[in-house]
């Protein structure tokens, strides 16, 4: 009896859930809205960044709808979860394409964006990534790929030159997590570091998702490494740093743009003091962003990291669609490349023929007392 009741409840809940989903879908279809989507790691290790993408896209859609929508149509936002897993990214991409989404403001991880962009290219969906910095993403030559962030070759160039100059004569280790983003960034940094005359002491890959990096840390310690450059995400970077300090290593960790989340500090704790990272000059402080930042703050959301980059992706797409007087992705793509500069929360942005931002700017940030600021 008890079991039957339980089964009944489960069945009831499932039915209600399915009905709820159906209702939501119909509502969207009826009002004739334009669908756009943001896809990123909403669950898993990098969910902190997924939340940034979601926050940026949601606010942009609210603001655009309040101003009358795009070409007279209201926007409806869909959120996709790729968990930074390339396979899941492809299946989410197919799902989004089948729902006739006009724009993807995502994905986050380069490893997801690259395979997903191929699906979008075939299915006629425009993709503007706010965060995928691997050069391959736009170099592959898809008609539909854009990004509002910079590229790893630009980022690595800045990082390598800075390390060679600021930490001349110190022993440097370069680590990466074998992801498209991490390895790409580590290799670009290595190239520019070597060009500046410094050779790294250790170059190694680690497995992301683990917690114990003490063997790796001891290895770095025995090589006398003083600077660790990590091409990878904040969880692993934070753990490596924490375990290095535990083993009494006086190291400085340097990373890329994947460290710009408060979660890095929560993981690394006090060991994170003095950690350096490359990121574009703080978009929150630009005059173009003041009004939008105030709106985020009013909602108690800190527009950190990629929030404004995602906002800009949606905003620029809307402007381009208005200018092209069409939401046809190919037309919007042409307009995006030829019609710039676009005024966005990030300031004026122009795209080159590949879809990259023409004037990216990477500067160094430092973590101090739980927050980061420009060096």
């Amino acid at each position, binding site marked *: 009896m008890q079991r039957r009741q339980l089964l009944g409840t489960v069945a009831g809940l499932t039915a209600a859930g399915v009905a709820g989903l159906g209702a939501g879908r119909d509502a969207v279809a009826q009002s004739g809205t334009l669908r756009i989507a943001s896809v990123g790691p*909403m*669950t*898993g*290790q990098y*969910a*902190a960044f997924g*939340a940034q993408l979601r926050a940026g896209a949601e606010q942009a859609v609210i603001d655009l709808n309040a101003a009358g929508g795009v070409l007279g149509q209201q926007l409806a936002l869909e959120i996709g979860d790729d968990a930074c897993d390339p396979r899941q990214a492809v299946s989410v991409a197919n799902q989004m394409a089948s729902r006739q989404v006009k724009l993807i403001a995502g994905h986050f991880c380069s490893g997801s964006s690259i395979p997903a962009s191929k699906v979008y290219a075939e299915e006629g969906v425009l993709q503007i990534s706010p965060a995928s910095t691997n050069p391959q993403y736009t170099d592959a030559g898809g008609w539909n790929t854009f990004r509002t962030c910079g590229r790893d070759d630009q980022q690595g160039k800045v990082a390598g030159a800075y390390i060679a100059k600021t930490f001349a004569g110190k022993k440097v280790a370069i680590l990466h997590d*074998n992801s498209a983003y991490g390895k790409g960034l580590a290799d670009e940094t290595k190239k520019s570091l070597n060009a500046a005359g410094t050779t790294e002491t250790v170059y*190694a*890959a*680690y*497995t992301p*998702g*683990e*917690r*114990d990096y*003490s*063997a*790796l840390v*001891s*290895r770095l*310690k*025995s090589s*006398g490494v003083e600077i660790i450059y990590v091409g990878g995400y904040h*969880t692993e970077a*934070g*753990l490596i740093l*924490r375990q290095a300090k*535990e*083993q*009494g290593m006086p190291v400085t960790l340097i990373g890329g743009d994947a460290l710009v989340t408060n*979660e890095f500090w*929560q*993981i690394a*704790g006090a060991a994170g003091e003095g950690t350096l990272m490359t990121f574009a000059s703080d978009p929150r402080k630009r005059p173009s962003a003041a009004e939008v930042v105030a709106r985020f703050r009013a909602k108690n959301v800190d527009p950190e990291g990629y929030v404004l980059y995602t906002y800009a992706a949606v905003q620029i797409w809307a402007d381009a669609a208005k200018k092209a007087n069409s939401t046809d992705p190919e037309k919007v793509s042409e307009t995006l490349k030829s019609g710039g500069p676009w005024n966005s929360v990030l300031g004026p942005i122009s795209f080159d023929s590949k879809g990259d931002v023409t004037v990216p700017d990477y500067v160094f940030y430092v973590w101090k007392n739980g927050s980061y600021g420009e060096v």
Partner: protein
Amino acid sequence: MAYALQQLINGVSLGMIYGLIAIGYTMVYGIIGMINFAHGDIFMIGAFLSLIGLLLITSGGLLDGPGAIVLVLALSMAFTALYGWTVERLAYRPLRGSFRLAPLISAIGMSIVLQNYVQVSQGARVKPIEPVVQGGFTIMQEGTFAVQLSTMQILIILTTLVILAIFTWLVTRTRLGRAMRACEQDRKMASLLGIDTDRTISITFVIGAALAAVAGTMYLLRYGVIDFYIGFLVGVKAFTAAVLGGIGSLPGAVLGGLLIGLIETFWSAYFSVQYKDVAAFSILILTLVFMPTGLLGRAEVEKV
């Protein structure tokens, strides 16, 4: 020399955690001949419960220092044991008379249920804590290289040894242990002789879960970052450890855990960090080719 010693310390403290979880796999296999695939997730539940306990105790400001850790450990063991009991009661006992693969599949189902349950109730983001147990000793100095032994590593090694001693005593010297071993040898015969086999099996799950909770607490305190997915990777490693040591054998599980920890660490130390898992699993394959029952497994147990 100093370098090898440091890596030995790293490897032993990692291997101890694997060993603690491996005991849970090996005990359940010993008694009902089933791989409890949900065990890695029981470990994850243990880690989350100790996180909740730690936050409650330290934010309440009731206790601090060693007292708090003991209390967190006790709370986490008690509640995780409850989870272990419930899992057995819900997913495995109704299938006791069924064909062999049925509980195996429901174990995989249980693993998915537990993962999603924690993901929904606790959120998908990683949960970091500030380091709780800090400090350590420099036990050797060679040139500029200092061998560090942290308080946390000592704590892990001591706790594992003490807990292991208690449970070995429990299984080999007590009435309950005798009942467990009787069920292991022949469940039907044991029940004919008046042993409550269902109760004995439940207790086995409870003990396994309590040990996983110890591992979860140590893991949380040592690494400070947990999420709903940690049970998978650690579970696979611990399962490997149980098989390497000889599944069904208690000392074998700990030996297997230590070996996996040491192989991973020393491979990272002297060869490539990237291929440490390949090394660990290759050694597992080699061992099984030459010793199909694992290092300390007994050949006469015909369960497969």
